[in-house]
Each structure stands twice: as C-alpha cells, then as structure tokens.
C-alpha cells in the first residue's frame, strides 16, 4: 500500500497571494496538505499576470510561469467578496480547515470579516498564520511592503556589494521565500502542538524580522562593536581564493546578446590551495611565499584572482568545474536558468517536475528540495487554473448542491 504523505488530511484555507504566502503554502502542498487557494477573477493574483508566458504571449491568468511555479499541487476556488454568499462559502471552508493563512497587510483579514477572533469562532482549534511585511504591531504596521524593497529594508543590501561600491540588492525578492519557508515551519510547529494538546493558535510573523534572522552576523558586528560591516564583494576573511571567475561565454547568443559564464572557486585552507595550484597547472605556486598561507593569499588576493582567471577564462565552465572537483577543490558553475535546466546533478536526482497543465501544457518546473524515505513527497499536480476547483470544493467538500452552485455563479458570487 502506498504510504500517505506527511500532511495528508490537513486542509489549508489559503488566502495568500504574490510570493511570500504562496511560497509558504507550496511547502505545505509538497508535504501533502490540501491547499485551497481562495482567489477572485475580479483581481487575480499579481503573479498570474506577470511573465514569463509561453513564447512571450500573454493569454490570461493561467499562463504565467511565475504563478505556475509557486502554486504547484494546490487547488483554486474563486470567490467574489462583494457578495455575502462568497463570505458564507469562505466561512464554510474555514469550518472544515485546519489552517488559515494570509500575507495581506495588517488589518485586511479583519476588514474582510476573517480576523482571528472570527475565524476561531468558526473553528476553535484553527491554526491561523499572518505573514505580513512589517508585522501586526508597531508604528509601521500599516506600511506597504513590496518584495524587492524588503531586501534593502532587511539590511541585506547594505551588507552586499563590491568593495567600495554602494549597497547592492540580492537580485531577487529574497525576503519573500525566506519568510515563506519560516512560515511553513511555523504552521507545522503549531500543528504539532495542536496534535498533542488539541489547541489551535494565532501565529504572527513579519517578513522583515524573518530576514534579519538570516543576517545575524551583520547585526552582531554592530551590536558588539558599534561598527557597520564593510561590503567586500565575493571575498571571505577566512578563505582565499573565494570568488567567481570568468570562463568562455555561451557559444551562441540569446536574443542577440552574448551571455557570459562564470564558475565559483573556494579554497577553505592551504591544502586546498595546493590542490588548486596543481589543478591549474601551476604547482610551483602552492608553496610560493605570495600564496602559501591564508594571510599571504589575502595580502595578494588581486594577483591570486588574476592568475586563476587566466586559467578559467579560456575554459568551458562545466569541464573546468569537473576538473577542479576531481582535484578536490570546491568549485561550481555559476548557474543561469539555461544551465540549471540541464544541471546533471539536479536532473539525475529527479528534481524537476513535468506535469500536464491545461493552459501551458508540460513545462519544466522546480521541485521539492527534500526527500523522505518512508513518506516520499511528490508534486501531485500542476498549478491550478483560476477557479479550477470551485465546483469540486463547493460540492465535494462544502456540501453545496449543483443548483445552489449554479445560483451562486449566476449572482457572480463565484467570480
């Protein structure tokens, strides 16, 4: 008999949108929870409207690769909260759910009539998670939080950058998935507590605080010494070389652009430096006084990096990495999406997901970053089209009759 998934039987009323919240409920879907997205056609999730779209052509709210990545394995119902009937549907869903989760700004769920005090009346042992940008309390609780701005707000930008340059971004809205992962953990811990005691609870989270939790080395420098850490590119105080090194460009262009390629190389100690020196055909450098010790390599790091670049710059990244790893050096391709899509390791491990989607067909999507021996997790389906499961959930789970359902649709309560 096939093993059940870890969270089989757990139902999540998912009010989340954009990225942080959907990333959270994606982890729970990966673990087997029934995640029911509450959406509306009157204002589709932001990510449903954003690119990438198949061949660059927008064809409506079901074609976005962004949405389709972070909503795999979930269900979608549409409710138009202009109508009291839609509120009734949501109330009936909450009554049969284990978790309610949202990442709206503070106060939005209360105004919709789904604040915790209301929700717990519907389901006394509910776990309710609110994952806002700034948290439910504090003077900035009503501030607007957008993904890209949360990275500089968090403090990561002021720590990240080339030496002597202004602060840089992380290149993506990192605080969102970071908060989403912490949120999934918060849900699971609250479910564990409920399983032991029968007691549900409210969990309040701030995306900002979740992000500060992963840059503690930075805040501690200030807390201990009143000093701002200096931005220092890719370098590391205890390892050298430690950086990304240029290789040959992709042999073909993409959209008329040359695409460059890089590999990362790190030597954690003198022995690894010795292995690197041999691997790049410069064994005499292993014991060269300019490079022999960490202190020497740090003192001559520009020269060190130039020597390594002169080796990498004429090489294909994958074969250069293969060569260095065989010699016992920590190296890896600085993977772009094209490389990643065929990464031999990810491919061999069966990481990627190929599920049939009614609008976009079969597209390659990223999968689950863990494996379990007794209860193997899998992505059960492609992301839902908008409202794909309205009929199924209302009739199958919530006990609406076909006639009632049609009546609600006629009134536009299920738009």
């Amino acid at each position, binding site marked *: 008999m096939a*093993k059940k998934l870890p969270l089989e039987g757990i139902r999540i009323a998912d009010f989340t949108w954009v990225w942080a919240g959907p990333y959270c409920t994606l982890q729970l879907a990966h673990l087997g929870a029934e995640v029911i997205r509450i959406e509306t056609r009157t204002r589709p999730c932001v990510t449903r409207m*954003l690119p*990438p779209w198949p061949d660059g052509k927008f064809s409506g709210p079901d074609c*976005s690769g962004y949405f389709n*990545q972070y909503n795999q394995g979930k269900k979608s119902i549409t409710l138009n909260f202009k109508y009291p009937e839609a509120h009734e549907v949501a109330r009936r869903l909450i009554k049969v759910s284990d978790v309610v989760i949202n990442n709206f700004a503070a106060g939005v769920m209360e105004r919709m009539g789904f604040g915790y005090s209301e929700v717990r009346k519907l389901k006394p042992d509910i776990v309710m998670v609110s994952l806002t940008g700034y*948290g439910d309390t504090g003077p*900035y609780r009503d*501030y*607007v*939080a957008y993904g890209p*701005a949360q990275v500089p*707000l968090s403090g990561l*930008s*002021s720590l*990240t950058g080339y030496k002597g340059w202004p602060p*840089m971004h*992380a*290149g993506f809205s990192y605080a969102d998935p*970071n908060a989403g*992962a912490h949120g999934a*953990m*918060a849900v699971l811990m*609250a479910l*564990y*507590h409920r399983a032991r005691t029968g007691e549900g609870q*409210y969990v309040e989270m701030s995306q*900002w*605080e979740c992000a*500060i*939790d992963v840059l*503690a*080395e*930075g805040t*501690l420098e*200030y807390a*201990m010494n009143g000093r*701002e*850490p200096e931005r220092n590119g*890719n370098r590391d105080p205890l*390892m050298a070389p430690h*950086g*990304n090194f240029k290789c040959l460009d992709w042999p073909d262009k993409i959209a008329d652009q040359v*695409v*460059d390629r890089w590999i*990362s190389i790190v030597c954690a100690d003198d022995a690894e430096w010795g292995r690197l020196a041999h691997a790049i055909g410069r064994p005499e450098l292993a014991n060269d006084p300019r490079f022999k010790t960490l202190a020497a390599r740090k003192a001559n790091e520009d020269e060190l990096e130039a020597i390594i670049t002169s080796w990498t710059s004429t090489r294909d990244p994958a074969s250069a990495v293969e060569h260095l*790893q065989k010699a016992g050096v920590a190296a*890896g391709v600085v*993977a772009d*999406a*094209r490389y*990643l899509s065929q990464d031999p390791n*990810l491919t061999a*491990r069966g990481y990627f997901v190929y599920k049939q989607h009614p609008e*976009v067909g079969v597209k390659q999507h990223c*999968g689950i*970053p*863990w*494996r379990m*021996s007794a209860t193997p*997790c899998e992505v059960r389906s492609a992301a839902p089209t908008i409202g794909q499961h309205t009929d199924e959930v209302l009739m199958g789970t919530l006990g609406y009759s076909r006639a009632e359902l049609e009546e609600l649709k006629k009134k536009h309560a299920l738009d």
Partner: protein
Amino acid sequence: MAGALSDLKIVELGELVSAPYASKLMADMGAEVIKIERPGIGDRSRKRGPFPGGQPHPEKSGLFLYLNTNKLGVTLDVATPEGFGLLERLVADADIFIHNLNPPEMERVGLTYERLARLNPRLIMTSITPWGLTGPYRDWRAEELTVWAAGGVCVLNGAGPEHPELPPLKTFGHQSGYQGGVHAAVATMGALMARLRDGEGQHVEVSEQETIASMLEMTFEYWPYMKMVATRLGAKPIQPVETMEAKDGYIYICCIEDHQWDRLVEVMGNPEWAKEEIFADRFKRAANWDALKVFLGEYVRQQTVLGLYKAAQAKRIPLAPVSTMGDLLNSEHLKARGFFVEITQPVAGTHKYPGAPLKYEKTPWQIRRPAPTLGQHNEEIFGARLGLDTARLGELRKKGII
C-alpha cells in the same frame, strides 16, 4: 509556559550554519537540543565571528552564539568506534538526529540511517548536504558560495549592464546555509507529523542546491517558457526600482505600479521634469532611466532617508530605507515589537541578538540558556545521563574522544 516542541529531544551534529540553524529554530520553540562538536576544535562557526572588540576567541563568535543559543553542548569524535558508540546511545532515545556531514564524511564515520534506526525505529534523521545524498555531485566539495552560485541565484546579482567585467555577486553571509536550515526544519517537522500518525521514523535529506533552485522567483521559468535567461546584466523592464543615495544614507525607490509613481511625484512637489513625456509610464521610465536617474537622483540626494520613507509610506508608496545595521538596532518599529533580545553568555558578555521569526499566541519562543561553551555539558550528558563514571570520562578525554 512550555514551547510547542517542549517534548522533543534532538541531537545535532552540525557545522557552520545549516544544521545548527535548523535545530536552533526548534530549540527556540522548546525542544531539547544536544549539540555535538569536535573535541578541542569545535564548530567552524566559532572561528567566524563577529567577535567583541574584533578579537577572535572560540567562545565569543557572534555567529556561533546566535546559532547555538538554547542548546546543550558536548564534544565527541564520532569518527572513532567509541565515539560513534556514544552517538548511538545519545540518539537511542532522541526524536530527531540532524547533521550536515557530507557523503564522504558520512562514509568515513560509518553513519547511515539504517544503523541508527536499528536502535531507535522512531528516529527521524535529517541530513543536510550541499548536493544531496545521490547524484553525480554527491561527493563534491562545496562551501557557501559554491551552492549559492550552483543553485542559480548568484547569476542574478551584480553591477548591471554597464559593468559586465564585475562578477556575479554573492549575497552577504551564509544564505545557502540558512535556507538549507529552515527548509530542513520544514521537512523534519513534516516527518514528525507523519510519525504522529504512522508511529515510525524516517530519513529526510535536504539538498542545499535544490533549496536555492526552489526560490528563484520567476527567473528560472523564463528559460522553459520563453527561452530567455535572466542575469545581472539585464536591463530593468520597469523603473524606478533602484537604490539611490540620500542626504544621510541610501534609500530604495520602489514604484512598481504607475499609481505609486504618480503619488511619488506628488511627494516631490510635482516638479516640472516629471511631466515630461519620456517619463509618462513605468516602461518609458525604464527606457529613459539614464535621464530619470539624474532628475530623481538630485531630488533624493536632498532628502533624509527616514523623511522620504515616511512621506512616501504616508501615501502608500512602498519605499524602504537601505537599512544599515545601526538602523536595525535603533529602529523604532523593531524596538516597539521587542525584536532584538539581549542574551548573556558568561565568556562573551551581553549582546543584542536577532529575535523570534514568529510570535505564537500560546506557546512562546523563548531564550532559556545561552550557547554552550565547548564541551560544557559533557559531564551532564555523558556522566549523569548516560551513566559514564568519572574514570571513564577521564579516559575518553585523554584519548581525545570527548
């Protein structure tokens, strides 16, 4: 009041960030965590700092102290048969064993799930590795940067199209480690939920490379959907979404929607230049960013970070300061929420640490004890708990096993 995980016993064999962060997240919710370190050397994070006064000291590393608060600490050389035997005794009555040995180290030590599960079939063993326990790279070396780059994130960050000579840029700190850790906590908690139902433990493995690849926003899908590749050299389709210099620091100007820009123009006092056709919508502002950054830059340079931030937020424009560490420690918002917490550790002294990532209504996030000094709880765990007598402890110490 007890934490949500107060009935759990966890044994951690962790270095640097990933496994220590996973078990910290659970320790802060009440789980008992016994951390195992190498005798005499300890966790690598003890060397990384930051240190008070900038003076390296194995008991004063901020990173170590942060990641290992709330844990008990023992030293044990698990690569020796006697050491492994003690590890087996520790995990025999544990709920979770979490480690980040890589596959070659696991082989050297003889660590397999089957071996530990024989003693404790309810044990959940979580292995966090850079590349996974299977696949052609399983035995490859990796450090933080290696995985961040190989997971597909590093390629996205850098100086932009004007500076192709500058490399893809690492994000500060140990982000692969933290993400490996928090995703491992998620997967481990999932396995724990399965155990509540099925009664049996299992082996959970988390690949850091896969963890990073699972958080690439929309950038990965550009390839399968449109055969396009996002890199640090790409021009932004929408502006302004940029870090800009203000009078007293940097601020992030973020107008993704046209209506946000319209309101920012009001905040700026409706300057003439903003009426130019070349700045009429977000795409035109991106195409003409060269010009816009001059006008906008001149305005921003005359503002204070906090002043412009608050004025913009009052009109619901999602600007944000480029927070310095000082800004975070002194933030009126974070202070009001009680985010940073003071922890006293006898050797390192009292410092402020980042606090709870979540606030539970009923089961608190709590600091119960500071991070352990190296081998601090050897007597308590090996002596009082496992019943080794003083002579035996002395012998193990002499052999360098504890």
